[in-house]
């Protein structure tokens, strides 16, 4: 459903994403992991069409994002890492606006909007300007906006940040149901427990390059790390072993 082929992105001399090739099949919840600055957000923003790749291609549902941006984007719902929404629109107006951007309107949109707002417990605030929303409420509104137009693919960047435990649980269940019904999810996260529990397959990116990819069993086999948790495996692949002694940090 999502295909990245030799995808690269340079910022001047710095290479943020380096020849990344990846495929996320239809009906899969795919985890995208990596340390800070590894190139996750850059990759997701290229898939969403916000950044233009320096080289390589992005294909969504068979549509080349460069050749047919509107066709490719119509299949996609995107949740960015920072919840920026129009502060002078109400929650309901924002969702209606996003649906319209995808060419959708009418009773169907209103019904979906109400369902999503109810699901994320935003219904009482739907006629409030979003400037009065908390970080978590904005995050929930963004997730709703990514689903309001019934996309085939959802790309989410750190979706759990700012969510209360109940909303996080709701989101996990929602994404699972979405995938079971044939949808595809590409999700970046730092919460390794979430990735381990939810994702069908995982890719780990480091310094803009693919370090490993596959199911948990594949990753363990590939890295000869039988029995390791995802956290240990992640640290092993990304060279992020925690220093053995931290006690000195708090000495005078």
């Amino acid at each position: 459903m999502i295909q990245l082929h030799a995808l690269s992105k340079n910022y001047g001399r710095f290479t943020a994403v380096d020849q990344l090739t990846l495929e996320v099949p239809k009906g899969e919840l795919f985890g995208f992991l990596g340390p800070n600055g590894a190139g996750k957000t850059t990759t997701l923003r290229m898939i969403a069409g916000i950044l233009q790749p320096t080289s390589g291609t992005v294909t969504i549902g068979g549509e080349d994002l460069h050749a047919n941006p509107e066709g490719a984007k119509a299949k996609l719902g995107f949740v960015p890492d920072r919840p920026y929404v129009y502060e002078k629109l109400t929650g309901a107006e924002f969702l209606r606006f996003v649906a319209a951007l995808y060419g959708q309107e009418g009773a169907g949109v209103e019904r979906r909007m109400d369902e999503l707002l109810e699901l994320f417990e935003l219904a009482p605030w739907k006629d409030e300007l979003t400037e009065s929303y908390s970080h978590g409420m904005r995050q929930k509104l963004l997730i709703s906006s990514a689903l309001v137009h019934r996309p085939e693919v959802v790309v989410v960047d750190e979706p759990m940040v700012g969510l209360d435990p109940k909303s996080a649980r709701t989101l996990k269940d929602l994404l699972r149901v979405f995938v079971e019904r044939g949808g595809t999810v590409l999700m970046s996260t730092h919460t390794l427990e979430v990735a381990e529990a939810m994702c069908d397959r995982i890719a780990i990116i480091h310094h803009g390059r693919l370090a490993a990819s596959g199911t948990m069993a594949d990753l363990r086999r590939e890295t000869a790390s039988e029995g390791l948790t995802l956290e240990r495996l992640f640290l092993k692949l990304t060279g992020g072993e925690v220093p053995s002694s931290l006690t000195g940090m708090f000495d005078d």
Partner: protein
Amino acid sequence: MTDASASAAAPAVPPPQPGLWTLLAPKWRTALARVRQERSGAGMRLLLLALVGFGFWSAVFGVSYRVLKYFRGVPDIGTLVATKLLAVLLLAFLGILLLSNIITALSTFFLASDLDLVVSAPVDWLRVYIAKLGETTVHSSWMVALVAAPIFTAYGMVFDGGPLYPMIVVAALIPFLVMPAILGTLVTLLLVNIFPARKTRDLLTLVAVGAVGGVVLLLRLIRPEQLARPEGFRNLLDYFSMLQGPTNPFLPSEWAADMVMNWLLRIGDPLPILLLWTTAAVLGVVGSAAHQRLYLAGYSKAQEGKDSFVRGGAWERALGPFLRTAGPARREFILKDLRLFFRDTTQWSQLILLAVLLAVYVFNIQTLQLFSGEQVPIFFVTLVVFLNQGLAGFVLAAIAARFIFPAISLEGRELWLLKSSPLDLRAMFWSKYFIGTLPLMIVALTLTLVTNALLHASTFIMLMSVITISLYTMAASALALGLGALFPQFGTENAAQIPTSFGGLVFMMSSLSLLALVIVIEALPVAGYLRAIATGETPGLSTELILSMVAVAALCAVSTILPLRAGLRRLQALEL
């Protein structure tokens, strides 16, 4: 006893306090970094800004110098008028400073993003107050200080201030600038303790814009230039007594003017200096005491209370029938822009100023008295109509700078949504163009038709004005939108600041150049038309006239298409 319980029992030692410099360092370093970025980014940009700044400074200095030189040459009255003029100028500055400080203090003391960090740190309240007061003073006073500098320089040069004169000016300006800052901060502190901060901001924006508009309108309607004419007074004695007496003896503007003029006229009177500095000191004590008692409560209140329930639908009902054919994306986009505009007080309140500007403009045209009995030559009437077109063009460019230029910048942080959606950016760009051009065109045509009617313009001039202004409006609007996309200001939250950026300057320069070109091209055929009238011939459509209209149309078309294309290309290539 454990370590923890021992430390709990020990008396709390107050932590060492950071210096004021430490508190101000982030702001200072941010400003420096910005300057460095500008320097490495574009030398041309700085050069242009420096040139414009120098030009403005020279103009203010030149006018002040000429006026003061003239006053100095008038025996007896001249010096008195110069003193009065300085007092009046400083009084105007004082009003501007007070308003500006009230609004700035709201941001620096209650809404700035660094406040959570500063308030939660164990920093002494007085240091926070002084640091934030300093920030407020600099933010709201730099422009006044910049305008005042050439004026004071002119005073010093005309009245032979001597080498110590700059120090006297600085000694007068410091308390003069600090006092309105303390007062403004105090007013804001009290307001925030009564209303929530965001409501206060809306309220203050409205009051400030309304006040400025009211003053401009009042000044134009009472025509103060007539008061400056001595012949308007009953006798010379009245005029003298008006000049000699202090206008506002209890205001710092009068003290600052007296302090400077006493030095220039070699009068040994220490009272103005004492009044300035002691009042500033007393105000400082009162301000800091109020800050100590009320700040934390006000800051806490500023974080709460945002009554923002909206039951929308008014725009859909009003525009729905017209936008039915536009498709959901374009329709919702237009409605979204309208909602954002009218829900943001800082945006729509500027319309009050605009209405005042237009009223002043029409009022001035009406008072030209071209038809008050005495026969004014047709040449003069037509010339005025023609100049009217230039002035209307200037007003339109200013409106486009304020309302259309920021359109792309205001999408700012939310542009991710538009770029990740299948919305055709061209449709979005056209919506912005349509929504900006339509009201501008209505203003342009109303202004042209009303002023031309007031001037009793001939059908030919009326037709030419309407065609020209329509073409120019489309081009100015395209230039504003296109250059707004080429020079976006995504970091700026206040829309009113966007037109003052480098891109805004480029837009004003290019739209005014276009206006000048249009006028130059049309000048020849208009001159021909006037000549024909003067010689008693029947003026008609000459080849020259047709060619000039074609040239104006072509020029405006190019100025419409090119910036729109360039802006759209930039928007499509924009990376966030």
